């Protein structure tokens, strides 16, 4: 498999050599082609526009913003492939190799969002999740340019927030409305139940339905009892994994990167 990956990376490097951007090579970015469309889903004009915008963000915030499309993952997981590309091309910006990479694989429609360095600060687990929710509908409709535009919008927004010292995370969104609604609903329910109990104390004359008090001391005499096994049934349910993104922050692997993967 490693031979195949090596061949693929070589092909990518050759491809990149052909699409050297029109602007000057940056000093800090190890790699100045921000869009790598090896799956060829973007027209040249759109690719250039996206590349220009991504480069502007890279320069402005000091965090490289990449978009990569590939025909397949060569047997790897999406996140593994992102890391291969990251390592293979020495992607990233500055000493920390800060970056955010959106990888799309066309074969089984896999995607991976990978962050590294300062990217881990700006793009939290929850941020990556929200970002995916925003661009997945466009990619699902094969609107590649629209999806990448949405991705860049998110990158700009999250990088700006990170620069302001408040990276986008679970507590960034305003949950006040939901909390108020839940609190009011629980409050009303608690009041209703308590008042029903108090009101029940006001009416104590009730018909008795049972006569348990009058059962003789010998109690229930069972003259016959059986518990017959009939059949066994089996049900299987998928377990929802605990979502770490609910707790906020960024989960970084041993390579110093963070990922969010799925299907589009």
């Amino acid at each position, binding site marked *: 498999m490693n031979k195949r990956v090596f061949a693929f990376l070589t092909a990518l490097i050759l491809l990149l050599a052909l699409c050297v951007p029109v602007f000057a090579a940056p000093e800090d970015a190890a790699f100045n082609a921000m869009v790598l469309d090896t799956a060829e889903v973007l027209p040249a004009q759109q690719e250039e526009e996206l590349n220009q915008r991504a480069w502007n963000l890279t320069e402005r915030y000091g965090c490289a913003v990449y978009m990569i499309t590939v025909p397949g993952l060569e047997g790897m997981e999406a996140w593994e492939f992102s890391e291969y590309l990251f390592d293979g091309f020495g992607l990233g910006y500055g000493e920390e190799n800060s970056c955010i990479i959106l990888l799309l694989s066309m074969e089984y429609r896999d995607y991976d969002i990978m962050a590294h360095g300062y990217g881990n600060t700006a793009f939290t687990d929850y941020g990556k999740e929200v970002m995916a929710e925003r661009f997945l509908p466009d990619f699902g409709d094969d609107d590649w340019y629209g999806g990448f535009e949405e991705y860049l919008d998110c990158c700009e927004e999250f990088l700006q927030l990170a620069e302001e010292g408040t990276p986008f995370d679970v507590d960034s969104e305003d*949950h*006040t409305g939901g*909390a*108020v609604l*839940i*609190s*009011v609903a*629980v*409050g*009303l329910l*608690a*009041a*209703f139940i*308590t*008042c029903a109990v*108090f*009101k029940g*104390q*006001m*009416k*104590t*004359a*009730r*018909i*008795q*339905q*049972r*006569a*348990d*008090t*009058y*059962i*003789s001391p*010998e*109690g*229930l*005499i*069972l*003259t*016959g*009892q*059986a*518990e*017959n*096994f*009939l*059949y*066994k*049934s*089996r*049900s*299987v*349910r*998928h*377990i929802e*994994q605990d979502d770490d993104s609910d707790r906020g922050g960024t989960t970084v692997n041993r390579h110093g990167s963070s990922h969010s993967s799925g299907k589009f």
Partner: protein
Amino acid sequence: MATGATNYQCPACTAPLHFSAASGKLECDYCGGIYEVEQIEQMYAAKDAAAAAAQETIDRKKAEQAAEMQAMGLEWSGEESAGMKTYSCPSCRAELICDATTAATSCPYCGNNTIIPGQFSGGLRPDLVIPFKLDKEAAKTALKNFYKGKKFLPGAFTKQNHIEEIKGVYVPFWLCDCTVEGTARYAAERSLTYDVGDERITETDHFEVLREGWLKMEKIPADASTKMPDEYMDAIEPYDYAELKEFSPAYLPGFLADKYDVPQQESMTRIEARAKTSIGNAFYGSASGFDSIAPEEEDYRLTDPVMRYALLPVWLLSTRWNKKSYLFAMNGQTGKLVGDLPVSKGKYWAWFAGIAASVTALLLLVLL
């Protein structure tokens, strides 16, 4: 002259006697004499029999007279006079007009306690009685305590309402000994859940649970007076049957008493329903070790019912507030008091708003 009514007089001073809930004896308010129930019962057995026989004659004569008067258009119609009886007070000879079921009352003119033995003669004689154990003062205190802790009770209710009437009544009850038997079939399940990888697997064993058996019931009560609301009489249960005694009219002076006017068969319907519910619950409770169990078929029947006629003590208290009457009933033996109280809408909504606001505020503090 013999009359259908009688009263128990003090052997020492001939003043009227009354049964004391506190001492469980007959007491004379005038000379302070205290007598055992059996003692007075023996003394007045002959007098009671004579009164009962006299009442039969009086009833017959009155029926004849009523028929004549009605024919002349001078008497109340049968509908008007139905349910009423007249007696002569054995003390002052005043005419007592009572319900047809009245068995013990007091004369509105001389205040003497009056017993109508004819209501208990022959087949009408109760088998058992539980004497009053709590007196009028205990009933008043119980009512005051009953108001306490009732969050929605209008503030003015306790201040403005007064006890209009308080009366100790021996209420007729049917007590039923019986066996309830039958069969039940339930669908039951027992589940085992375990995880394999990211899958949760639940294996459920399905069972058919069968039960057959019987339950012996002792003295299920059903009030046998149409005047008494069933829900009140049910709610003051249970009585302590250890204090049941053979019936004697000597327990009645000082209290009201009615004879039954709900036939056994009618009461049996209610008793049967309660007994069937109990065996259903007993069968259900015997099927343990399952995660869920649901009845699919139940067939219960009552066998060997033996009804006994008993008088049980009840204090009835009525109050009036805002032009509405409120009735309370207290078990004359155990002191259990029941009744429906008015609900203050203001207090209800104040509590509702207070609880809702407090809980909401607390949750907002936690969530935000």
